């Protein structure tokens, strides 16, 4: 009501945009409280774990304490070429994601823009999507050997589908009434794509990026565990043969931490690009 009264008077009350900024600040900004809340659960688990391990309730070969894992991490970092292996893994994941995700995005756009392309491609892609991409890993290795090609191919297979699917869904979900607006405003096809379709599909596309990244990470582990001479997965394999449980945990934590960091990066993009969304903020 107050908004309407203000509209009635025609006064541009400065209070309203300020209120808008406040609401947006909530969307953009993670307050310290939010971060603390998110960190609370892992912190409690680590503390209990350390205390239980220190008291000798858990066999260190079965489950080393967090401090033991930290020491293993230091050891690997100083003498085990951890940085090298990490670099190799990161490169594989990035290359696989860029190739698979990029293809998924491109094919998703094509199918989204051209109905006939969708009718041609989508049934086959849905068929292939139902094959767990890890199941074809042995086949890929048979074809390409144990080199980098097969690893990147396995990762790319996983990264393809989420981006394809979400890009297509995003384009199909563009509000038809806004298309009518672009006709009235005389947008050409190009302008329509860049000013309407891509921005409107962006929430889905970014969701696809997040899901593709997660699957790239998964594919990386499988590819490296199946046989390799470098990478974090290789370190885990070596540690398994040496019964070095601590080093296995180092590998696991690296996967978790880096995966979360990359995901946070994409969510940062979401908050920056998609702040216009009017979703329920909890």
């Amino acid at each position, binding site marked *: 009501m107050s*908004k*309407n*009264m203000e*509209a*009635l008077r*025609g006064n*541009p*009350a*400065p209070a*309203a*945009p300020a*209120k*808008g900024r406040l*609401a947006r600040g909530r969307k953009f900004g993670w307050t310290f409280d939010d971060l603390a809340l998110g960190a609370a659960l892992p912190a409690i688990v680590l503390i209990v774990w350390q205390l239980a391990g220190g008291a000798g309730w858990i066999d260190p070969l079965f489950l080393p304490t967090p401090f033991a894992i930290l020491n293993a991490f230091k050891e690997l970092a100083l003498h085990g070429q951890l940085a090298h292996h990490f670099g190799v893994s990161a490169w594989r994941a990035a290359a696989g994601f860029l190739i698979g995700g990029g293809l998924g995005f491109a094919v998703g756009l094509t199918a989204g823009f051209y109905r006939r392309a969708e009718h041609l491609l989508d049934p086959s892609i849905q068929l292939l999507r139902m094959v767990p991409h890890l199941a074809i890993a042995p086949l890929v290795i048979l074809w390409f050997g144990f080199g980098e090609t097969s690893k990147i191919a396995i990762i790319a297979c996983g990264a393809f589908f989420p981006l394809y699917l979400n890009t297509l869904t995003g384009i199909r979900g563009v509000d038809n*009434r*806004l298309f*009518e*607006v672009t*006709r*009235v*405003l*005389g*947008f050409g096809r190009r*302008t329509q794509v860049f*000013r*309407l379709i891509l*921005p*409107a599909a*962006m929430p889905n596309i970014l969701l696809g990026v997040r899901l593709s990244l997660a699957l790239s990470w998964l594919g990386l582990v499988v590819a490296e565990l199946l046989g390799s001479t470098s990478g974090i997965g290789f370190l885990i394999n070596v540690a398994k043969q040496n019964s070095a449980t601590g080093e296995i945990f180092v590998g696991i934590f690296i996967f978790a931490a880096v995966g979360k960091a990359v995901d946070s990066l994409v969510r940062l993009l979401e908050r920056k690009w*998609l*702040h*216009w*969304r*009017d979703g329920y903020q909890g």
Partner: protein
Amino acid sequence: MGNGVLLDIRNLNKTFQTNKGGVEAIRSLNLRIREGEFITVIGPSGCGKSTLLKIVAGLDVAYEGSVELEGNRIVAAGIDKGFIFQEPRLFPWLSVEKNIAADLSLRDPAIRRRVDELIELVRLQGFEKAYPRELSGGMAQRVAIARALLRSPKILLLDEPFGALDAFTRSHMQEVLLDIWQQNRTTMIFVTHDIDEAVYLANRIVILKPRPGEISGILANDLPYPRKQASASFQELRLAVLSEFHGKIERQEYVDRAGI
């Protein structure tokens, strides 16, 4: 064409094809609109008034007859025919000023100046950077009007633009629109189902009757602006519109209701 005729609709027929056969939406409609006129089109639902507007906008070109803007047959939508939908239909990811500019660049000083002028005209100063979700319905609709006006349309088509607004906001929006019309003299076709709104705004009121949509009558409205809704002359005209409705559609209404 001459003598200031902007839009010439001759013998317009429109039939929608459905799986049950054709449904006649508009039958032999003739209408001539001169430059600078403010036309309101009023009629009950199903009288084809929105269909008529979409045809004039070029959003629907599958019609029979002739619809010409400045002597040229309307074959497609475009910026010379501004269109305001019932909902504002803003781009949610763009701020107010960018919504108005849409495909035009605010970095162009000429565009920048025009956008600022329009923001002032629709009384949205201070909200340039706000996003659609931060706006009330009336404010969002004013952004839509500014967006259409930036393209300097020859004719502005409004499809029940204030129908979703509350009474206070609606009367404010009517003032804003009359302001714009008096300043720019943009030709307007305003579709509504609100008799008061139709009488309050227009020079000429086109009354349609439904099934199929046909012109039932056209009333000239010479009352001076600003109009007083409580005045006797206003009420008289209002009654004239009302009786035009009842005289022609009463019988059909009764028949329709008998079926319920």
